C-alpha cells in the first residue's frame, strides 16, 4: 500500500524549492558568509563589547529621558492613527451597509467604500520611514515628524485590519439590529463592537508595540528618541550602550505583551 498523497506532496515541495532558488540568488542570500573567520572575528568583538553594560548615571538618565520620548512618540502616533482609522473603518465596513441587507450593496455606497479602501492602501503602502523623511523636511528634525509618519502609515494599517476583524466577526447580532430598524452607528455600538472588542483592543496594543519599534527606526533618520541614541552608539561601536538600550526595548515589548494579555482577559 502506498500513501496516495505522497506524489503530490513531493511535487509541491520540489516546486517550492524551484521557485525559491531564484529568490535566493536575487537577494544574494549567502548565510555562510557569516561564518567566515574574518567576519566571525568582527562580529565576535562587537558582541563581546556588549559586556559590561553601560550604566553610568548620566547615561541611564539620558536613556530614561529618550525612552520616555520614544514611548510618547509611539503613543501619540497610534492615537492620531486611531483618529484616522476609526471613522474610515466605520465608513468602510460592509457589515454596516443598510442597502446590502437585502441582496447587493447599492452603487453609491459601494463606490464610497471602494474609495476608502484605496485611500487606506495609499496610506499604508508608503512606509513610515519614507513619510518621516518627507516630514523631516517639512517640520524639521525631531519627534513631530516621527509622530506624523506613524499616524499616517498606522492609520492605513489599523483601518484595513479593523475592517477585516469586523467583517470576519459574528455578524448575526448586527444584521438583526439593522433589520429591525436601528441606525448604522447604533448597530455598531450594540452589535458589532461588543462582538469584537477584545480582538480590536488586542490588535491595537500589538500595533502600539510595533509603533515603539518603528519610532526607534525613525530615530535613525533624526526623529529623536532612543533610536537616535542607538544610532550614535552604533557609530561609535559602543557595545555596552547598545546592549543597555536593547534591554530597554525588550522590557517595553514585554510590557506591551502583558498589557495586551490583561486587556484581553478583562474584555474577553
Amino acid at each position, binding site marked *: 500500500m502506498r500513501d496516495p498523497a505522497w506524489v503530490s506532496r513531493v511535487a509541491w515541495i520540489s516546486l517550492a524549492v524551484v521557485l525559491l532558488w531564484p529568490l535566493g540568488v536575487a537577494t544574494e542570500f549567502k548565510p555562510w558568509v557569516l561564518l567566515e573567520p574574518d567576519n566571525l572575528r568582527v562580529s565576535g568583538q562587537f558582541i563581546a563589547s556588549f559586556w559590561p553594560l553601560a550604566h553610568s548615571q548620566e547615561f541611564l538618565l539620558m536613556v530614561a529621558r529618550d525612552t520616555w520620548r520614544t514611548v510618547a512618540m509611539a503613543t501619540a502616533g497610534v492615537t492620531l492613527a486611531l483618529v484616522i482609522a476609526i471613522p474610515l473603518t466605520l465608513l468602510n465596513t460592509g457589515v454596516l451597509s*443598510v442597502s446590502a441587507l437585502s441582496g447587493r450593496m447599492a452603487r453609491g455606497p459601494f463606490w464610497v467604500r471602494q474609495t476608502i479602501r484605496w485611500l487606506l492602501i495609499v496610506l499604508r503602502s508608503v512606509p513610515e520611514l519614507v513619510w518621516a523623511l518627507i516630514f523631516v523636511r517639512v517640520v524639521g528634525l525631531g519627534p513631530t515628524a516621527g509622530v506624523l509618519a506613524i499616524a499616517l502609515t498606522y492609520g492605513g494599517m489599523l483601518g484595513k485590519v479593523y475592517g477585516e476583524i469586523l467583517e470576519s466577526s459574528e455578524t448575526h447580532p448586527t444584521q438583526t439590529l439593522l433589520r429591525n430598524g436601528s441606525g448604522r452607528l447604533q*448597530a455598531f455600538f450594540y452589535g458589532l463592537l461588543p462582538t469584537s*472588542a477584545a480582538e480590536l483592543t488586542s490588535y491595537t496594543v500589538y500595533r502600539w508595540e510595533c509603533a515603539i519599534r518603528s519610532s526607534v527606526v525613525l530615530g535613525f533618520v533624526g526623529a529623536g528618541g532612543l533610536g537616535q541614541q542607538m544610532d550614535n552608539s552604533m557609530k561609535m561601536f559602543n557595545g555596552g550602550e547598545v546592549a543597555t538600550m536593547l534591554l530597554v526595548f525588550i522590557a517595553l515589548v514585554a510590557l506591551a505583551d502583558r498589557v495586551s494579555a490583561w486587556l484581553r482577559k478583562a474584555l*474577553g
Partner: protein
Amino acid sequence: MSTPAANGLALQLDALSARHPAARASAAPALKGLNLRVGAGEQVAIIGPSGAGKTTLLQVLACALPPTAGTLTLDGRNPWQLPRRALQALRGELFLAPQVPPLPPRQRVVTSVLAGRLPAMGLMASLRSLFYPSDIPAAHAALERFDLGAKLFERVDRLSGGERQRVGLARGLLSPARFWLIDEPLSALDPTRSRQAIATLVDEAHTRRVTLVATLHQVDVALHHFPRVVGMRDGQVAFDLPASQVTRDRLAALYDQYEHELRGEVPVSPSNAPDAPPSAPQPVVMHCR
C-alpha cells in the same frame, strides 16, 4: 410595561415568490405564488413541515428579503418601492426575532434587551444607555415576563441556550414595533417554558394590539394559543383557518411524510440545540507588515 397601545400593522401578500436567503440563484423558490392577508392586530401562527418556506416567509415579511415576484404590502405601502431611508424607518416598525438569538456573547443581558428600543432612540441616547442603562425597570419587567429577572446584569455567554432565546423575546417587548415576527421561538425551550413564553407573547401582542406572526414547530401550542393558524407546505398556503377548524385530517395531510415532526420529534440541528455552549471567539490573526 407602559408602552402606549400601538395599532398593529396590516399586511398583504399577492402571488408572492421568494428564494431562501442562502439559496443559489438557480434554486427553486422557497415561496411559490403565495397569497396571504393579515389584518392589523391579528395573531397568526404558521405551521408546516421543515422546508415549507416558513422562515423565508418571515424574512420577506420583515423586509429583509426582496420578493422575486408578486408584491408585499405593509399598511398599504410597498416597502421595496420606498426610498432606502423610508424603508429603514419602516423596518423600525417591525420586530423580527430570528430563530438563533442575535445576542453578542460578551454583552450584558440588560443591554441586549434595551437594544430593542434602538429604533426609537437617538444616537446620543443610545450611547448614554451604554454608559448607564437607560431604563433598567423596563428591561427588568420584560425579563420578568420570561422568568429571567435575576439575569438582568449577567453576561449573555453565561446563559443557557433556552435563556438566550427568551432574552431575544424579551427584547421584543421593548421594541417600538407594530408588527412582531417571531421565528421558531420555542426551538430551545422545554414544554413548560414554551407554553409560558408563547402565552406571554400572545398576551402582550393582544394588549398592545400589535400584529403577531410566529412560525412554530409545536402544532399543539399553535392550536392552543393562536386564534388563526396558517398551514404551509412547499412554499404555498395549504390551509388558513381559525384554530378550532384545524382538524386532525388536515394536520395529517399537511405533515404527510413528515409525521415525526407532527409528533414533536423535531430533529435537533446544531443551531437550535438547547444549551449549546457558545463557540469560543477565534483568536485573531496578527499581521506586522
